[in-house]
């Protein structure tokens, strides 16, 4: 017992520290470790092209679903084109689309580019509210001068 400090306060502090420090170290270590794999960046198609996003890296791709680009295949696969003002990106998705997915409206797809430059989406963000626009998408569109406030959605040309 001689190793323990004499004062009550110091002993209490030592005890607190000896429990809290390992937990803190564990928390920081685990948090840093887990962040490596699960942080994904948000890009619009032109930003993704400019950033040369590597194949297979999980990102979020946001933009407008180009008018007339949605193709529904019999096997349940859905192809469409996500566009911002400067670039477009083909997207393929297998699964059920959110109820509010519509051509000409904003969408956020989560997934990765395949070697052919097609964005393979694992998830399409669902929304509760047709007036809702993800803040990243709104900010990206504002930067490109495409934002026209609530209500008016930017319109993109019909399919070529």
């Amino acid at each position, binding site marked *: 017992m001689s190793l323990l400090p004499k004062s*009550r306060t110091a002993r209490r502090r030592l*005890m607190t520290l000896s429990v809290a420090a390992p937990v803190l170290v564990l928390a920081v270590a685990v948090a840093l470790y887990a962040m490596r794999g699960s*942080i*994904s960046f948000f890009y619009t198609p032109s930003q993704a092209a400019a950033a040369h996003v590597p194949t297979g890296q999980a990102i979020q791709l946001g933009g407008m679903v180009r008018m007339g680009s949605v193709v*529904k295949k019999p096997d349940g696969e859905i192809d469409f084109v996500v566009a911002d003002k400067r670039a477009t990106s083909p997207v393929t998705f297998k699964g059920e689309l959110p109820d509010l997915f519509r*051509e000409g409206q904003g969408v956020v797809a989560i997934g990765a580019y395949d070697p052919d430059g097609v964005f393979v989406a694992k998830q399409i963000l669902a929304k509760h509210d*047709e007036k809702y626009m*993800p803040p990243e998408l709104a900010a990206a569109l504002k930067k490109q001068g495409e934002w026209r406030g609530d209500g008016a959605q930017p319109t993109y040309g019909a399919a070529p």
Partner: protein
Amino acid sequence: MIDELGQFALILALMLSLAQAGFSIAGRARRDAALTGAGEGAAMGAFVAIALGFAALIHAFVTSDFSVMNVAANSHTAKPLIYKIAGAWGSHEGSMLLWCLMLTGYGAVMAAARRLPFGLKASAVATQGLLGALFIGYMVFASNPLNRLASPPFQGDSLNPLLQDPALAGHPPFLYAGYVGFSVVFSLSAAALVEGRVDPAWARWIRPWTLAAWSFLTIGITMGSYWAYYELGWGGWWAWDPVENASFMPWLMGTALLHSAAVTEKRGALASWTVLLGIGAFTLSMMGAFLVRSGVLTSVHSFAIDPKRGVLLLGILGVAAGGGLALYAWRAPTLKDEAVFAPVSREGALFLNNILLAAATAVVLIGTLLPLIRSAIDGTPISVGAPYFNTTFGALVSPALIALPAGALLAWKRGDLPAALRRLWIAGLAAAVAILATFSLVTPRSLLAACGIGLGVWVIFGALAEAAERVRLFRAPLQEVGRRTLGLPRGAWGMTLAHIGIGVFALGASFETAWRAEATEALGLGQTMHLGGYTLRLERVAQEFGPNFEAERAYIRVTDASGALLCEAEPDRRLYAAGGQTVSGVAICPRLLDDVYVVSGEKRLGSSPAGGGGPQRGGGGSLPSSAAANQALSAASGGARVIAPPPPLRGPPPPTGEENATYLVRAYWNPWVHFVFAGPLIMALGGLVSLTDRRLRFAVTARVRAALAPAAAE
């Protein structure tokens, strides 16, 4: 007229809240019971006034008074009555009114409490009054639910159909009862700091409030999770979405608070830590309201936003939380917190639990706010995925669960760990058997999930062992066991129930996450698909009509491996004409612990198995409902929205035959998912049972009895 009276009542409530704070502060400073009495009266008056305002809003919704802006935006004459009433808190403005109703309600109950000492009560009532004035002021000036429209519309815009659901009608009241319940703990903590006194009696006074808030929050989160599970149609019950985290963080901190308050109550230790948690729990509740309602974070649950309100809510959060924390920084060093305790003791175990829960809260908080911080630093939008939360949260909560049964068996002051572990040999054996059995029998093999199952079994059996220990099961004559069982305080039963609940949840969460199955296929009429051991056969699809929607309903026969009928699943796709939205109605076939979960998707024409039709080009949504939806949408928004004409079909037109139509059917098998929802409900039940403990009401008698019979407790 009633609406204007309601407006008046809300403004009156604001004045009464200010009076509540003013009278209580003046009365506390002058030690004048008449003045503090006036403050308490004002607190009750504020509650009555808010209740009148709330009644006026309900009245406007029930009578579909579309001259009230909030009703016009969120109601519709064709909506069922229950959703008209629930619509009153479905919108931002209405939910803030509900928040204020709860805040003043809790304040009124606290003002009516008779046991609290003079100084503490006056300070707490004053703090509650200031909180009330902040939130009521925000509601009256920036988000008034009773504002009129200059030119009322003939029909309302209706409540978002996803929100027209029984679980969601009850979700906000429970959630807010939880969030706002922590306001009383916040006020009592601030009052304790002002008075400079934190002792076991104070810890006992915050206990019922913490228990009530925690139990309501548990129920509210579970209802929200269940709603997301069966309404959103993606088959999951938790996504670590910012809005979910916003409700989960106050819960975690409230759980920590319950345990640290027990240490303060029994041993007088951890006093300033308990006060900090008391302030933190309501701070996180307010932050939850801010995150949900300001829309600063991307969330699948986000609603359309008004940035001005976000800034105001942030201001309120800053003033209230900043004030509380500044008071803490200033006054906490004066609190006496000298008790030393041994590492191996009940309080030592509870301290470990608190450190782990606080760390878990911190990693969830960091993960939730990181996108915000990162985009503030260099403007890079990022998102933090569910794996981050699963790894960090799991790593921090698993040690807490491993330690739980042993900690609960340790004695206060100085515990005997080997003796505690010896009493847990059954639980240890059961957990080992569970891990081995799960790992070897369930395919595909997953050691992690098997350990999760083992952990759940360990916690459940540990809680039972602790209860058995208390009643001396198998160690005393049966008569004595019976006597002890009856004499056990409700608080002890509550604790056992809550611990069993967390174990049950761990079982369900581990099993469901590891072994859920999913299948998606385009089915023609009469075709089948397989999912786990089940076969799903699409029998027919019919057009049907509900009170305010029309539905395309699929009839799907679900049979198990032996061919026996499990159920007729009837998922549908509903088109709500009023808001122009299509919503999938999920069909769930429960079977013991499992669910077969079926969602019917869009109809696809011309995609015959022979492949004659080729891919179909067209807008989102199935053909008939999409066109109708677009029409309804343009009508509802007064033509402001640009609706593009349907794009021309390319290539040869598909064979028109309806006989070739297929429907995208998505199905999940969610094994043990019922445990996921039952666990938290058992926990909440434990909290409520604990709340009925007589000791909370007759603290003095209990203290006397405890002093007289220390021998009986050992």
